[in-house]
């Protein structure tokens, strides 16, 4: 089987990997790089559990091929906290109990991060539409939305 050599930046570190053409970014992260924070949900771009940030944009890692990533910049959940210091979104998810089983959480955190970078002061409705591509089957969305809105307040305050 054809193996493709790819060099990409993941969470700030240059990473070299080989992959077959069929392998998605999600497969590469979990199977080859053993980065298990990115979750495998539906595999068809419907649930958002595998959301990562690719070249500054949130994408479903299950709908990206590893082979197209030469030179790409990828941010996963493993890069969100700085050492022991949680990202404000991560802290607010804890404060608001915005997770139960946690499978959807990495994807939602990264989608929320991308959302707040583009729109630091979203309305509740904008948060709900922004997170429409992330399914949660146990927490319910209210706590998640409240956590994101609260994190937005804190992130705006720390910037000014």
């Amino acid at each position, binding site marked *: *089987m*054809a193996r*493709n050599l790819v060099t990409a930046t993941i969470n700030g570190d240059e990473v070299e990997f080989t992959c*077959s*053409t*069929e392998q*998605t970014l999600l497969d590469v992260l979990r199977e080859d790089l053993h980065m298990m924070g990115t979750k495998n949900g539906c*595999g*068809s*771009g*419907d649930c*958002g559990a595998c*959301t990562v940030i*690719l070249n500054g*944009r*949130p*994408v*479903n890692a*299950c*709908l*990206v*091929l590893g*082979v*197209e990533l030469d030179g790409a910049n990828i941010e996963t959940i493993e890069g969100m906290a700085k050492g022991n210091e949680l990202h404000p979104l991560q802290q607010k998810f804890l404060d608001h109990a915005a997770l139960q089983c946690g499978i959807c959480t990495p994807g939602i955190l990264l*989608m929320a991060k*991308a*959302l707040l970078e583009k729109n630091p002061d979203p309305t509740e409705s904008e948060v709900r*539409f*922004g997170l*429409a*591509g*992330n399914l949660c089957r146990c927490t319910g969305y209210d706590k998640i939305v409240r956590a994101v809105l609260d994190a937005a307040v804190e992130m705006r305050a720390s910037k000014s």
Partner: protein
Amino acid sequence: MVDLRYESPETIEVAVALLAAEGQMARVFAGGTDLLVQMKEELVEPALLVDIKKISETRLIAIDPDQVRIGAAVTGAELGENEQLKAMWPGVVEAVELIGSAQVQGRATIGGNLCNASPAADSVPALIAAEARAVIAGPDGIREVPVGEFLTGPGQTSLGLGEFVTSITLPKPPEHGGDAYLRFIPRTEMDIAVVGAGLSVVLNPDGTCAAARLALGAVAPTARLVEAASEIMVGNKLDDTVLEALSAAASETCSPIDDKRGTIEFRTKVAGVLACRVAKIAWRRAENN
């Protein structure tokens, strides 16, 4: 199992040669939001993926004096961030922005939405209403086809061996012109159109209609131009008589299927309702241009 290969050519010529050599076993790859799902479901089993994203023509939005060119591999998110394009063809941009989630928007391309040829593709009615053309590269050079003629059936296009869509062109919007797109889905986000309606209109200085095109999606095997809409609207203002006739013409154009998203009867009725709503939005935009 076929050993799947991947190529990412930087020129149109190389892409055409790769596609022509591989024939039916090659697939053009851009955003992958349809293709990778179809491969996973084993609906298609290509031997070669030709990634067109490194070909510069497929990635640019060019506002020329007489037309707008949108590269086939431009994503929904990129279109939505282009304020100039949004001001010129808001209906086309709002149609593309309705495709999928924010994550899908970061990858899904306008050319992919066209070439996937779903009868419910959101971009298509807006593109037909805007008189968009598909620019196609192939072994015999470049040809252009109106979007309405490019689509030949569900999942079917008029692309021949070795051909692929490099860009989509829109005319420069006329003075006092406006366009809009609306779709009906049972939820508020993340669904496939039960009916989609795109309309573009040009107004005379006296506020009557000079030209209009209405196209409907998800109500027939391919998106359809409502031929009668132009005659109903031209020369008139958007009064109740015109709206009633427009609604009836839209419903008459439908030959939909029954499925879990909507019945034949429902789709036919909603087509008329959306035609009127989209006409009002496009009209208001035209008045402000």
